[in-house]
């Protein structure tokens, strides 16, 4: 006998959410969705959640189990039980609950909309047949195109927890779908937009989206790919790009990070407000003797590191 501890919420009845336990014998091979269906159909018909294809392609049944987002149809229920035989089910995070496990996807879709989620092939009329695209070019958009918009990455994104303005992993992965599509002619404009606040450089590298993604889409990798394109496209006038360039320059020069230079160069030498923001933490560290050595020392054999940079034309 397993216990499904489900977070219930029905503002028609009472304003606060609460947890309700349902005991169930898990049928052999049953997925979490199978079990939740059994609970709804045999124990409490008022339990609300979304589901449709039950084969991990429609993206409806995202929810949290034991604190982490997953597709209920994709996981064996028995694998989710803790040592007391309990699994805790909650709605996806970073979105407003509507009822029980149903959350409001409106902001999610609005952000998808914001990245201009459609091919921009330029003005020329399309050819009579298909546009050609090599298998290598196809591979650049193969993984991202597996996204099923389930919202699991959005739910567990660490940046979104504190900044609702962040586009979020799904929208950025969708953006990479076009940034890296050989048929799209708007790459520069796209990466320029995506480099603004709320875009790629607000990703905090937590990689929760990689863990939660039920498909090969893996948004964090896609975000990094956009960053590389943005730097190649010369979109450098923002802290994120300056940070990456300064960091790389520093490794090239000395084989290691120059911690004194990096913050200043990230802000930009003419960004007075940004530079002033660095003062308090700098002062605190200075007072404690934590400021890195003013004379930046290179690693031994830095020549070899420089050679690698040179060979790679970096």
């Amino acid at each position, binding site marked *: 006998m397993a216990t499904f501890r489900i977070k219930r919420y029905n503002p028609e009845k009472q304003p606060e959410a609460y947890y309700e336990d349902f005991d169930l014998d898990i049928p052999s091979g049953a997925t979490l969705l199978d079990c939740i269906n059994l609970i709804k159909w045999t124990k409490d018909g008022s339990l609300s959640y979304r589901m449709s294809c039950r*084969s991990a392609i*429609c993206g409806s049944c995202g929810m949290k189990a034991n604190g982490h987002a997953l597709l209920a149809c994709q996981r064996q229920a028995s694998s989710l039980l803790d040592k007391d035989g309990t699994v805790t089910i909650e709605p996806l995070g970073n979105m407003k609950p509507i*009822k029980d496990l149903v959350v409001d996807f409106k902001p999610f879709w609005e952000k998808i909309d914001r990245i201009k989620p*459609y091919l921009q092939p330029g003005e020329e009329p399309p050819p009579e047949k298909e546009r050609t*695209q090599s298998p290598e070019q196809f591979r650049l958009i193969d993984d991202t195109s597996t996204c099923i918009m389930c919202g699991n990455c959005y739910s567990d994104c660490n940046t979104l927890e504190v900044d609702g303005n962040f586009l979020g992993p799904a929208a950025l992965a969708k953006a990479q779908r076009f940034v890296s599509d050989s048929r799209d002619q708007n790459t520069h404009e796209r990466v320029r937009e995506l480099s603004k606040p709320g875009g790629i450089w607000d990703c905090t590298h937590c990689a929760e989206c990689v863990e939660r993604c039920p498909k090969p889409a893996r948004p964090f990798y896609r975000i990094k790919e956009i960053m590389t394109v943005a730097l190649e496209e010369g979109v450098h006038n923002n802290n994120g790009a300056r940070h990456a360039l300064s960091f790389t320059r520093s490794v090239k020069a000395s084989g290691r990070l120059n911690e004194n230079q990096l913050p200043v160069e990230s802000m930009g030498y003419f960004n007075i407000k940004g530079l002033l923001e660095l003062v308090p933490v700098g002062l605190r560290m200075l007072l404690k003797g934590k400021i890195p050595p003013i004379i930046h020392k290179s690693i031994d054999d830095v020549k070899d590191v420089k050679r690698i940079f040179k060979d790679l034309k970096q």
Partner: protein
Amino acid sequence: MIEHDVVIVGAGLAGMRAALEVCRDLDVALLTKVYPSRSHSGAAQGGIAASLANSEDDSWEEHMFDTVKGGDYLSDQDAVEEYVKSASRVIYELEHMGCVFSRTPDGRIAQRSFGGHSRPRACFSADRTGHAILHALHEQVMKNSRSIKVYSEWFMHSLIIEDGQCRGVVVSDVRTGAVEVIQAKAVVFATGGYGRAFQITTNAFASTADGVLAAFNSGIPLEDAEFVQFHPSGLYRQGILFSEAARGEGGYLLNGLGKRFMEKYAPERMELAPRDIVARAEQSEIDAGRGVNGEDFIHLDLRHLGEARIMERLPQIRQLGIDFISVDCVKEPLPIQPTAHYSMGGIPTDKFGAVVMDAEGTRVNGFFAAGECACVSVHGANRLGTNSLLDAVVFGERAGRSALEYAKSVASPSVNESREKTRVLSQFEEIFQREGSESYNDIRNEMKVVMTAKCGVFRDAESLAQCIEKIKALQVRYKKGKVTDKGRLFNTELYEIIELGNMLKMAEIISTAALARKESRGGHFRSDFPKRNDVDFLHHSLVYPSDGDGLELKTKPVVITRHQPAERTY
């Protein structure tokens, strides 16, 4: 009251393709009970057919012949001809929209073999072709959001037809439970199939006959309802789809003796015979006790393809096996059985997507349908794999264009809003007030079991009579069900009850049409009449509602142009 020029119900491939057509000139409402990207079109895996000839010579003529033969000569050949001729163009259009396709080494759309197609004709995006097209169309819908208003998570309850003219639909917002009328000059249905009436099915929980039943309840007949396709490779017990592409790429079917049994049933095409033939072969092996370990499944063996090819061409299938049954098809064969997959039948339309009432092709003004919910009929008695995505795109476009032209030619019709709303509200009320003790879960399960057992791959007069009797008893019990949730907010129980009511009626229609067709053809196999009978049954069936809860059966001739019915061997 909500007003739009055109309302489209269903946002899968057909619905979205139709919306893109209508939005060129008019304002369109696109209604879906899920979200567009959650539509079941996205579950299609293997490919979309077109004679692009990218890897081997091909022609629309060959595509047409394969389709007609595959459909056991029940297809309307005038429609098939236009359909296959459009195929290349619509696929290039999808590619131009941005659809992601797997490619040949020289960068063209890659194509592979599929059951019943004599040439490698399936254009594909790994093993998620439906998903790729669905998202490409969704992208275009988002691009055109100024003229396409999407109503996600809205449920369509009924069609408003007055004085022979379609005037809109009655709908409700799942989130709030609010009932609304959407008035429109034209209505397009793209509501998909109804495989959920069966126990073993590939279909999503959302595939529940809401659209076809709304049409039927307005007095429109359903065509060829007896023709349900059973897909040969459903995951054992669950029915989840393992694409035919697995066999297209060279996969074997093995019985319990480890033998490739298809050599007995289709010696030439082997595993790549049409689905009806392969599904029957599998069921015959299972029924003869030659399932694996004597159980109700056989094996789909991909091991000889190797990990690299599986990862390139069939990655999703591999993941499904690992996630759902912990079987890695690189190392072990997959347990499969036939699974209800596709409805060849549906709302009768002409080749322009206009809904027709009778054998003479009398149109219902302002009402159009496309995709799986419609019966044009291009698939006849059995659809070939990869022809359904093509159907959805070709006829989605046609229905959209027809609706656009029609809507431009008429004034806004009047609708009695309060009467229409009251009908649906009183249906809600009636359900809420049921005080019975019957479990909807039991009723649904019993329906699904009897449909798979008595109206499945093999049928006969006795099993079908039992099936109909059982379904009728379930319809009575349905009225005495127990309801838990009487709230308005996101009440999924209410919608599931309404869907179950629709499916019970649909199950009766399917089994009644199956009982009347005393021959075997395509996906409909009568053990008591194992031969095709062109003398008595080379016609479509039409099931009409008749007084009260009754059904009335009529027939409609098949359009035969290029290919006279001939013996069908593979």
